């Protein structure tokens, strides 16, 4: 912070012509800050903190599956509450919030050469609404009856019936929390979109934006259009729960008593939920795609292969993801012809996705690969995403999906493709950008330890789980008991998976320790430790000061991937460096 020594108004004097918010006190600088970088760190810390809760929940679930009865406080109700909260937190409050609220806030202004988001005040409100949503979610643990155990999909009618745990207050708090999240997220999302459209510096055309920004941008547009469906579904379910309406609730008899609900359609909820839910998968995948592209190019010292194709693929995936939602509903009893249509669209998405994977691999081809932690995580992402994607081909086909539905195979599939894969990118991105955020490197030895245990461990958890699913082990069961089709080896596998899950979870503590320890004790990083081309590495100060770029905004002269340009003095040319036409321009020499 340059102005820390000159008083709060130093910036106003320093950039007289810049419309910029100027913090005037410690509170407005670090707590109620309108600086996108501070908001990003707030978003990321909150998301990681609540994510740790979800991690502990997964341990408890695994303990129950492997050693039923060992932890006495886990009864069936508690188990369902753990499942629900683990899923909801991981998908929405951790991954979505971290990618868009965390990385979006930090990277978009810096990578585009902007001083801040275009609506800083709204951006601040976005974070505080998100925090409120998280607190409401956490509050459901302390409410009578505990959090809801309806499963992360919250399907009615069971979500609001009395046999479901958390029926008293948990489900209401869950729905309110989601509504708050959507409202807060809309405020942030408007910022990200409009900053990309209007806040770019001179020379930064859309086709010169780093793929990280492309991924976050398209994901945010999708989120803006998909989250209203979640909002509508939550509001209508609140009506059903609190006012006794029958939007989703059919005529139900509960404990022999006919309820007042009548005629509602649970399928209607499923349509609304998955109209949000499927784009959500790509809302967390597209930022990961973008970030991984940048990590690979930087750490393989090569330009990204097929940049245009990468951009088009991001846009096409974004558009297609809105017409595949009902592939989550093959067994819901909807018209089978729908299933045929949605299976087709689902398989079509594999085409742009495969293009991206080929381009990542071709970026690595004959690159100068540095196997440092960000690169390791990026490579692990490619492998994991391909693995998860391949099982997606199984589940996307109706005839294969029907027998595998609600089995452990599905759990393994979506954990690989939208859990582990994205988390790996998040780790890689944190190892990559931590030096810019704090000015210090993370410890390399601990990083390698973290990587290998996480990567290998995740495979040891989720690969056997596919096998369990093929054997017919169902998901969501509190306890399997004596089921004749399950051989004893299934249980032994469950024990193995649990041990691995505990190990991988413990490795995350190493990561958290590294994050905290390195703030003070890490090696000083300098401004551009990875010798990267994008604008965030070219800031005058590290960590970037308020206003990001000092007096003059950078001017962009080239795309984001001029690595190893033949004839250039260094193996990277920053985007804001003017220079001669590179020799790889055909006919320029």
């Amino acid at each position, binding site marked *: 912070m340059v102005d820390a020594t000159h008083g709060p108004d130093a910036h106003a004097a320093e950039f007289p012509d810049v419309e910029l918010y100027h913090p005037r006190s410690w509170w407005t600088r670090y707590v109620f800050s309108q600086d996108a970088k501070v908001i990003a760190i707030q978003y990321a810390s909150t998301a990681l903190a609540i994510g740790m809760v979800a991690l502990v929940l997964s341990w408890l679930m695994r303990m129950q599956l492997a050693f039923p009865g060992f932890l006495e406080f886990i009864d069936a109700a508690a188990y369902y509450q753990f499942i629900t909260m683990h899923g909801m937190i991981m998908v929405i409050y951790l991954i979505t919030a971290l990618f868009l609220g965390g990385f979006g806030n930090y990277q978009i202004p810096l990578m585009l050469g902007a001083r801040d988001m275009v609506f800083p005040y709204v951006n601040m409100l976005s974070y505080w609404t998100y925090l409120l949503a998280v607190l409401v979610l956490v509050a459901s643990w302390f409410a009578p009856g505990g959090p809801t155990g309806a499963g992360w999909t919250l399907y009615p009618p069971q979500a609001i019936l009395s046999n479901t745990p958390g029926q008293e207050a948990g489900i209401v708090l869950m729905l309110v929390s989601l509504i708050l999240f959507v409202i807060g997220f809309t405020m942030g999302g*408007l910022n990200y979109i*409009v900053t990309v459209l209007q806040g770019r510096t001179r020379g930064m*055309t859309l*086709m*010169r934006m780093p793929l990280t920004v492309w991924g976050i941008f398209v994901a945010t547009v999708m989120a803006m259009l998909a989250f209203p469906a979640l909002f*509508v579904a939550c*509001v209508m379910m609140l009506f059903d729960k609190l006012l006794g*309406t029958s939007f989703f609730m059919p005529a139900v008899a509960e404990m022999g008593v006919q309820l007042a609900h009548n005629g509602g359609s649970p399928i209607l909820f499923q349509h609304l939920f998955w109209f949000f839910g499927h784009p959500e998968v790509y809302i967390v995948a597209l930022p990961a795609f973008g970030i991984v592209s940048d990590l690979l190019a930087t750490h393989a010292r090569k330009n990204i292969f097929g940049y*245009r194709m990468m951009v088009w693929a991001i846009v096409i995936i974004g558009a297609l993801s809105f017409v595949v939602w009902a592939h989550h509903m093959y067994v819901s009893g909807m018209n089978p012809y729908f299933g045929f249509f949605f299976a087709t669209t689902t398989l079509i998405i594999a085409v742009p996705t495969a293009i991206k994977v080929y381009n990542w691999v071709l970026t690595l081809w004959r690159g100068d690969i540095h196997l440092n932690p960000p690169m390791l995580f990026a490579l692990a992402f490619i492998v994991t995403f391909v693995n998860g994607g391949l099982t997606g081909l199984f589940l996307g086909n109706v005839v294969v999906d029907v027998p595998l539905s609600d089995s452990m195979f599905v759990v393994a599939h979506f954990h690989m493709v939208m859990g582990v894969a994205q988390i790996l990118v998040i780790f890689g991105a944190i190892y990559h950008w931590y030096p810019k955020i704090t000015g210090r490197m993370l410890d390399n030895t601990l990083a390698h330890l973290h990587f290998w245990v996480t990567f290998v461990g995740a495979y040891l958890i989720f690969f056997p789980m596919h096998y369990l699913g093929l054997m017919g082990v169902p998901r969501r069961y509190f306890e399997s008991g004596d089921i004749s089709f399950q051989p004893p080896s299934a249980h032994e596998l469950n024990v193995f998976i649990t041990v691995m899950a505990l190990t991988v979870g413990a490795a995350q503590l190493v990561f958290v320790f590294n994050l905290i320890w390195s703030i003070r004790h890490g090696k000083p990083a300098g401004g551009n430790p990875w010798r990267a081309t994008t604008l965030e590495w070219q800031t005058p100060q590290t960590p970037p000061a308020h206003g990001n770029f000092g007096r003059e905004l950078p001017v962009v002269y080239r795309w984001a991937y001029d690595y190893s340009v033949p004839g250039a003095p260094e193996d990277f040319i920053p985007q804001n460096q003017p220079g001669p036409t590179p020799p790889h321009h055909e006919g320029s020499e």
Partner: protein
Amino acid sequence: MSVVIMLFAGFAAFAGWWLAQQRLTSKPWLEQGVIEGVPDFEASHDPAKRAGLGFFLAIVGSMFTLLAGAYFMRRDLGDWQALPVPPILWINTGALVLSSLALEYTQRSVRRGDIVRLRVGLAVAALFALAFLGGQLIAWQQLSAEGYYVATNPANSFFYLVTGLHGLHILGGLVALGWATAKAWGSEKVEGVRLNVELCATYWLFMLFVWVVLFSLIAGWASAFIELCGQLLS
């Protein structure tokens, strides 16, 4: 969900049209220097706020379209009994139209540079919007007095749900309108509130459009219109 798909097809067409102008086929690795002749955006707040409102309206539009989609799906499930349209809804519609017209008048005053008329226009618009909200509450009261409670029938549930959400959006708009009014009273020149007035007018026009669509949905004309279209197509 077909109405939702239609809206999203519209969004996709717009996005495609916009992207087509963004030189997505250029080869950035061959280009150097500051590229001129492309939309050059300076970090300026006026167009950003316009774009922000545009996106916000798209989000609000998707929300109400999703509600309409849910409405059509739920309506066909057999237990639907349309509720009578309270006559006061016509008066409310008139109030919202007048509120919107007052904002158009305010925009004209901005162009003429007349700060006094601008203040009057804003105040009148706010008053009519409040009248609209009050009228909606009266409509709720009348319906519930006649026994049309929120849970009695899905038609009633949808009525309360969509009018409530629409009313909340008007209420949110009133905050922005109040902010513009306060600004107009605090300054002697129209320039300071030009953008506020413009954005409020756009928002009001959009919410009026949403209301007209919702009203026709509630009154059943939208269904009659769709049936007519269906008959024409078949």
